[in-house]
């Protein structure tokens, strides 16, 4: 087992998986992901935490000072695998009481905090505990985290000494949308279903895929506890999406056999069409960074190109050596989040020099400063630099 490594650009094709026709409730469309070949050597189970807040130590020991990630974490996932390809039985409650993990702190009767060790924690020889989505989010927050390395005169003292610390992002919990809860309740699971693509108003919101159908069945309702892009709430106000019934051409049917073939074709068209709808992530180019190597399985997180004009996703995945997706969870960045990440990326590429970055973006230094302020990064710059740029920009 190794940790760390270099990031690489690659594609995320859904090998070994196929899509089934979608099921629609209100503005939510859920597309089942089916898997035909199930070796059963990787199992994922849910471990729930019932604290109000969780603190994850990213550096140093459990209760030591260092970098921390603070969020509401309703559950973690426990990954059991076998490197020899034999089927494994997933962790049961009996073997390890849930309360044992990390440290639970009580303050008063109503609130509590759990301190957890690392985003991905190895618990046993062949067992890993990871915090789904938070793993991805932490990676996103850490992206270009350091702040300027050269002490350019425009940057505030705080930005130079602390970087962008502390950074925070807002997301919406699955509970925020009543339609989503209802859609999950009435969703009819397929026998070989291992995942689901979640569309809100026909915009891809998230993919959730696991390795084994039984694990998915157990995790289906837990999808509500995950967090999703702002579109979940924003687009929730839009009307219902169409059921999208395709038809059969009359002329092609002259016998029962034709009719059966036509229905089969209809089913196949559906899978193609749903794949096309999910193009933003499936088969798209992503920048991946490996996190763990566990036998034949690679845990990694990834993010798409961060181009402001396209849909951007980030996520985490466990891939088998041959590229089969065994676990996948993605998060769609909102437009504002994309803008922020894009600006930071440009600054980092320009060595945090405002002039050089502005030139690269084909804009002026003043406009770049205003854009930084609008994106919420005003605190990075010295007050008088910001003021002066704003006045000049307004006068223009």
């Amino acid at each position, binding site marked *: 087992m190794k940790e760390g490594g270099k990031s690489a650009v690659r594609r995320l094709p859904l090998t070994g998986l196929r899509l089934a026709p979608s099921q629609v409730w209100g503005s939510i469309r859920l597309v089942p992901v089916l898997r035909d070949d199930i070796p059963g050597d990787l199992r994922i189970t849910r471990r729930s935490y019932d604290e109000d807040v969780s603190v994850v130590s990213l550096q140093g020991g459990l209760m030591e000072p260092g970098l921390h990630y603070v969020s509401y974490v309703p559950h973690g996932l426990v990954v059991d695998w076998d490197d020899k390809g034999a089927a494994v039985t997933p962790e049961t409650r009996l073997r390890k009481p849930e309360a044992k993990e990390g440290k639970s702190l009580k303050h008063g009767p109503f609130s509590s905090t759990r301190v957890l060790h690392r985003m991905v924690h190895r618990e046993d020889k062949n067992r890993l505990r990871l915090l789904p989505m938070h793993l991805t989010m932490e990676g996103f927050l850490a992206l270009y985290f350091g702040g300027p390395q050269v002490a350019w005169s425009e940057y505030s003292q705080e930005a130079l000494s602390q970087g962008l610390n502390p950074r925070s992002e807002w997301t919406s919990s699955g509970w925020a949308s009543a339609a989503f809860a209802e859609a999950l309740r009435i969703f*009819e699971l397929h026998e070989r279903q291992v995942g689901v693509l979640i569309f809100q108003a026909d915009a891809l919101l998230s993919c959730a895929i696991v390795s084994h159908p039984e694990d998915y069945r157990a995790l289906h309702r837990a999808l509500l506890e995950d967090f999703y892009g702002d579109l979940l709430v924003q687009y929730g106000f839009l009307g219902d999406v169409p059921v999208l019934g395709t038809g059969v051409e009359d002329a092609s049917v002259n016998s029962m056999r034709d009719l059966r073939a036509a229905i089969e074709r209809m089913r196949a068209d559906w899978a193609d069409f749903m794949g096309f709808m999910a193009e933003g992530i499936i088969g798209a180019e992503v920048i991946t960074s490996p996190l763990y190597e566990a036998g034949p399985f690679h845990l990694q997180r990834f993010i798409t190109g961060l181009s402001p004009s396209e849909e951007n996703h980030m996520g985490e995945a466990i891939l088998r050596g041959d590229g089969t997706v065994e676990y996948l969870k993605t998060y769609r960045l909102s437009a504002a989040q994309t803008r922020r990440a894009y600006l930071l990326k440009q600054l980092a590429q320009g060595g945090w020099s405002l002039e050089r970055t502005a030139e690269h973006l084909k804009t002026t230094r003043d406009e770049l400063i205003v854009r930084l302020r609008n994106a919420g990064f005003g605190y990075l710059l010295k007050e008088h630099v910001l003021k002066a740029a704003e006045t000049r920009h307004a006068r223009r």
Partner: protein
Amino acid sequence: MDIVGARAEQVAREDLVMFVNACFSCTGQREFYNDGRGQAVSIEFLHAYILGNYRRLYTRTLAAGINHFNQAQIILNLLASGKQTPSADRHEEGALIAAALRALPPQRAYRVLDVLRERRINNRRSRAIVREFLKGRADLHFDAVKYRSKLRAAVAHTHLKLPGELNPFLFHGWRKRVFQAPLLETFRKAHYDASALFELPYTVAEGLAAKHQLPRDVFLRKIEPRLTAAERLRLQGSATRAQGAIALDLGRTPLTRLALYVLSLPLEVRRERLAELHTALEQAAVNSLRRASVPLGRVAAVLDNSYSASGSSEKRRRPLGVALAAHYLLAATAREYRAFWMHPPEHPLLSRARGQTDLATPLLDALDWMPELVVVVSDGYDNDPPNAVAEVTRLFRTKLDPARRTTIIHANPVFASELYAPRGIGTHVPTVGVRDAEDLPTVLGFARFAEGASPLAELEDYLAARVRRMLEHSPRGHAGTEPPRARSELPEESLDEEVA
């Protein structure tokens, strides 16, 4: 006929078909896809609309074999708006209300009387109907004990004077005096002496047992002889938990209720008792056919056991139960029969509500077998792929079988409140609502109206014929003409008492 008239007739026919369909399936309870509130609003609207526009046909729907919930609604709505009855229809309407009220299970009928008071319906006709209903009851002493509060409400509301000790019993209760009537006296005694309790109906005794702090298993063992068939069925689970067993004559249980009971058992238990349960269901199917039977030829059933057949918390597994019961009913009545389950179970009795809805594949299999009649039992949702079953039925009707050698009928146990009707599977197949599989013979007769081809006059004749039959079978004002269903709720003893 002029165009306006023809159009009006079409509208009337569609309205009525929609209404009767709703009356077969809707009970105002929540379903898998719709909540209870939406259901209630939807069905209330339908009642108000049909009552306002087609009063006579609204009344006659009482005879169409619709479910008890809607019968009760119709009786109440008619009694509340007696003034609008045209004088020509007055006699028939009154007779129908009286007959329908008498045919309802007693607890439902008494609930109607209770709602009369809640809604402050107190016209002369309502009072007459209540009087007549109470006169027709087999044993008012028994009713006075079992439905005490409801009977008291009805008596107070209509200012009735009941014979013998009933009025003092209802209004002064057990504290005032000693009663001559044995049942009333037992009721009085049971308040002081736990041993008298076991002579009372189960529902009454249950409350008093709590008062005397009787242990549950002792109570269940001793009250067992007094249980009605429905109560026996209901108590199976709790009796097993209390380490007791209640003898249950599965052969006498109504078919759909038995199917629901079987489905409520864990899979292992079903597997163990497979032969016994199978025989019981077959027996129940034969029994229900004795009541209404249509001999059928070569029949295929397409049965939906997808996840949505699990119903809701209020109607647990009802769609699956109806499918299972329909399987046994059709097998018993058809010359040749084959079932096409959506997810073929090992044995029909072991089916579970799981998985997606792919209605097209079993329907195609069924059509390949070339039956005379295909009965599809499904909630009308189709998602793998969507719209597929509608396309299959459309192309089959228009291109492959325009001569209609095969009839397809869709029976739907679920009322979709947003459509005011059970959801269909394409415009080329008639959809009829069912609540119990026992309704199937009736709804198969009704299906030709749902198809939309027959004229309104025929539907009116159909309803009129059913009204005639209903009124013939229960001559007005004649005591002791309850249908067997109501009588079976009463224990034998109470009937004897009245004779004595």
